[in-house]
């Protein structure tokens, strides 16, 4: 048991667990963001709850940050180890004959998602932490009303940011198209339900990023 994380299968398992957590988080993030399309009040209330409820702030948020960092660091560590397992490359390699582009390029899609995440943190997370824990304003109010919806709208005014977010979510979709099914395979789940699960995975991998793109475009054009 002690050496499980030092083994190839143990690392796969840990990667899969962090992936499951992140996929559930993305779904929850989307569920709240889509509220902004239908009702600014409901979006404000949900955002204020998530931004101030102690269990979310002091339990789930640190776990999330750890999960994100772990997933990226372990991903890069595995990539380096895997590259070291083949010192001499093939003069001709026909990877497309036996595997998908997404499966062969997880490090690249993941790398672009990391760049996107850094920008996303600078855009939303760091100002939020600053307001709440540096300035000390936990009210969530600005000029007598909740600030969350207006902040969201303002962020999506510049077209360059909207374009950047769209590209980021396209890479997320590419990553999930392989990652969803791969995570289940890594924890040993390959059985009669696998085909249905892979179908659901495709819906998730395309549907959720497409939904995020829709939200960004909606606020850009409707504002």
């Amino acid at each position, binding site marked *: *048991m002690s*050496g*499980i994380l030092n*083994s*190839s*299968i*143990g*690392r*796969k*398992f840990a990667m899969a667990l962090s992936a499951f957590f992140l996929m559930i988080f993305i779904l929850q993030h989307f569920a709240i963001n889509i509220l902004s399309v239908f009702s600014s009040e409901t979006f404000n209330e949900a955002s204020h709850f998530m931004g101030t409820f102690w269990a979310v702030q002091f339990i789930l948020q640190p776990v999330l940050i750890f999960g994100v960092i772990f997933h990226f660091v372990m991903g890069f560590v*595995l990539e380096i*180890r*895997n590259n*070291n*397992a*083949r*010192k*001499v*490359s*093939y*003069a*001709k*390699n*026909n*990877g497309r*004959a*036996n*595997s*998908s582009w997404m*499966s*062969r390029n*997880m490090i690249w899609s993941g790398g672009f998602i990391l760049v996107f995440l850094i920008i996303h943190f600078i855009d939303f997370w760091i100002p939020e932490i600053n307001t709440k824990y540096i300035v000390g304003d936990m009210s969530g109010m600005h000029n007598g009303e909740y600030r969350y919806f207006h902040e969201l709208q303002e962020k999506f005014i510049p077209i360059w940011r909207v374009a950047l977010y769209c590209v980021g979510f396209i890479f997320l979709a590419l990553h999930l198209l*392989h990652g969803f*099914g*791969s995570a289940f*395979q*890594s*924890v*040993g*789940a*390959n*059985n009669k339900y696998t085909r249905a699960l892979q179908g659901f995975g495709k819906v998730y991998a395309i549907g959720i990023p497409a939904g995020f793109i829709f939200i960004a475009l909606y606020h850009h054009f409707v504002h």
Partner: protein
Amino acid sequence: MNLTLKIWRQKNANDKGKMVDYQISDVSPDMSFLEMLDVLNTQLIEKGEEPVAFDHDCREGICGSCSLYINGEAHGPDRLITTCQLHMRKFKDGDTIYIEPWRAKAFPVIKDLIVDRGAFDRIQHAGGFISVNTSGNTQDANAIPIEKASADAAFDAATCIGCGACVASCKNSSAMLFVSAKVSQFALLPQGQVEATDRVLNMVNQMDAEGFGNCTNTGACEVECPKGISLENIARMNREYLKASFKG
């Protein structure tokens, strides 16, 4: 058929090696790929040159000796075959064919297209067996009833010939399809349960120690495997390994 062959030539394990071009003519479409190489070698010997070294034995897809990476794929462009079962009719007149050895740190090149697959032997030695006395007092095969589905799945896993195409095809040089087949063929049968915990832990530990890469579930190994070993075996090995880790 007239072909251009680009073949990896390497004098020994310490030589740097390089791709060398050869022209070969009058190749029959009915030749096997290895017979085509035999013709090339005959020509090289007649010219006083060193023939191309490549592994082969049974030449009927059973032994797992032949191990060529042809035009970017293990065992060439066809499916569910070994190199010896590949025929020249799969190529066109005037084609250029790249012929390389399996590439993996754990499979060092010995000479030309021959690699040392001793890593697979050491993984097998680490746990790919059951401790049963078979010296003259073998039990009747039907003494222990085994359900058909498990027997079939175990047999499918046992068809792995250990050629190494999975390692060669994997972008990470992972040996998990091979190891999982060896783990599965015993894990699915009651006779394999006694040593199940030690088997999977020891075989995976040996696999890691040999320097194979980590599986990222691209599925390339399953596609290129000449015996059609399924990714289900890797999932089963993952379960067996996790169960064994928590148990022992």
